[in-house]
């Protein structure tokens, strides 16, 4: 039976979707404390696409790769609970301040280090930036084709994959030889829930630095339970040009950030007059609430 080596790219993000009135502080800055860090939603759809391949081709393996701070190990564990076989946390101070291009470069270097893969799957975009750039940029850096906006894998064999893409107006079915990078839409099937047995097995899985941080007996636990060790890679573990990493390797710079200050609760009464509604729409556009 065919088996596939799958890499799933995932990101831990602040949950910006359900920001209510308390998400912004009175001074107009983002209240990060009320925003939990979560598994980027479309990356979960990507994981489900990978798990469905594994359902059909039992000997396939799923490696979850994430780049971020040490805390991002949480989403690797989340991936283990749902069926991922392996997880790698790419973390290093040198990655700090990366824009999408520097992120893609670091991820592509880590993927070259993993070396052997048939399919890379990731979410279309992350909810904190909504850029949808990292997927295509990783594909370009690796010199492989990309299939964006995947809703479903229609068929797969050792040579070729057929994918249903969700576009603005309709759908497109495309075929491509492996290896390929696929980005997954939120219209794809939602990820299956955690598996209770896997949760028991992996709940203590972590990386070495996290283990040291909490003062646990890392060596003792690692020798007897190797599945609890999550790989942690820094720049010494990948072959890379450090000039292309982090802030220095990022062509885009943030010049300025304006916070959107939402109005107070006092309601404003507006008459059904051309002038009044014109003023309202202009006010909403100028304050970036719409438009």
């Amino acid at each position, binding site marked *: 039976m065919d088996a596939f080596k799958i890499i799933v790219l995932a990101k831990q993000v*602040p949950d*910006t*979707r*359900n*920001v*209510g*009135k308390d998400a*912004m502080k009175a001074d107009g800055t*983002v209240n990060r404390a009320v925003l939990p860090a979560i598994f980027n*939603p479309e990356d979960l759809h990507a994981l489900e696409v990978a798990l469905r391949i594994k359902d059909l081709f039992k000997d396939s393996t799923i490696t979850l790769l994430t780049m971020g701070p040490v805390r991002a190990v949480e989403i690797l564990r989340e991936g283990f609970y749902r069926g991922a076989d392996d997880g790698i946390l790419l973390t290093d101070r040198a990655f700090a301040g990366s824009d*999408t*291009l520097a992120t893609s470069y670091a991820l592509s270097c880590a993927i070259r280090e993993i070396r052997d893969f048939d399919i890379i799957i990731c979410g279309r975009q992350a909810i*904190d*930036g*909504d*850029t*949808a*750039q*990292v*997927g*295509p*940029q990783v*594909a*370009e*850096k690796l010199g492989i*084709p*990309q299939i*964006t906006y995947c809703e479903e894998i229609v068929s797969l064999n050792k040579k070729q994959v057929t994918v249903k893409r969700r576009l603005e107006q*309709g759908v*497109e079915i495309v*075929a*491509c030889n492996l290896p390929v990078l696929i980005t997954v839409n*939120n*219209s794809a099937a939602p990820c299956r829930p955690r598996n209770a047995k896997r949760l028991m097995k992996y709940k203590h899985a972590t990386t070495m630095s996290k283990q040291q941080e909490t003062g646990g007996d890392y060596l003792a636990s690692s020798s007897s339970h190797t599945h609890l060790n999550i790989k942690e890679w820094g720049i010494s573990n990948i072959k890379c040009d450090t000039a292309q990493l982090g802030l220095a390797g990022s*062509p*885009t*710079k*943030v*010049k300025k*950030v*304006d*916070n*959107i200050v*939402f*109005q107070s609760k006092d*309601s*404003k*009464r507006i*008459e059904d007059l*051309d002038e009044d*509604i*014109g003023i309202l*729409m*202009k006010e*909403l*556009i100028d304050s*970036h*609430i*719409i*438009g």
Partner: protein
Amino acid sequence: MNNVTVYCEFEEGKIADVSFELLSKGRNLANQLNCKLEALLFGNNLDGLEKEIAPYGVDILFKAEDERLSPYTTLPHTSLMVKLFKEQKPQIVLMGATTIGRDLGPRVSSALGSGLTADCTELEIGDHEDKKEKKIYKNLLYQIRPAFGGNIIATIINPDCRPQMATVREGVMRKVISDPKHTCEVIHLDVKNYFNKTDFAIKIIERHIEKSKINIKNSSIIVAGGFGVGSRENFGLLHRLASLLGGEVGATRAAVDAGFVEHERQVGQTGVTVRPKVYIACGISGQIQHLAGMQESSIIISINNDVNAPINKIANYVIQGKVENVIPKMIRYFKENSK
């Protein structure tokens, strides 16, 4: 060299509206920078299309014609752009933030090692001082976009890398014909010199129109209607406003039960709970079961002819009037005021 370039999307025999909008903005930027405006048009059967493009003030049109360029696939379009940009060295490249632009843009930016900003809502020319390096950059492209789920507005610049690339959503910029009689120089590209052997890895097997499943939970703008909207036809107005604002239509249980909209759009205790950035409640009185599903919205705008409707107590803006009169006005003034 050093010009402003717009990638024109050509699908199903038509140039996309967003491309005309970007050409209009591109002309404006080129005037400020005192450089030329160039357009790219890749596809098949492109005869005479320069007549549609030139009136927007285009100086040079680069055309690439080949049957393998239409319908769009990523790799041949990428190869054309990357090689052409290496020859022409534009300073600014604009593309639509469409399914095509968001697929092509990042691939091209990665190949060129240049910066790309997605979904810009404003583009301006301005200077930048790097205090650490003691360097002053003149005439950069300010790429302004919402980030962090729309809670902040960031101004992004690319000080050192060229081209400065940006994508913009349809309807954000305004379409302006600069001179109906304007003509442009047309340069035909010999595609053989641009394609790579591996560019045709993706085969399109089938394309068809298919409605996507409704999911209002992830929408940052919701235009919701109650029983007071009155009819399925009147809900059409809500759909128009929602699509213009890039949002979704929601509804109360009463409106769903009356058959005005699909059940998937129901907000409230027995429907979905939403927390959008903007909730426009049209003809909704504000039953507690409905409020439970939307009261955490950041901005609530209520349109109701009853001043005493309970929903007005939690609304930031209350427009007193009939839905069928107010929404057309909102549509009109949104269009007039958007850039």
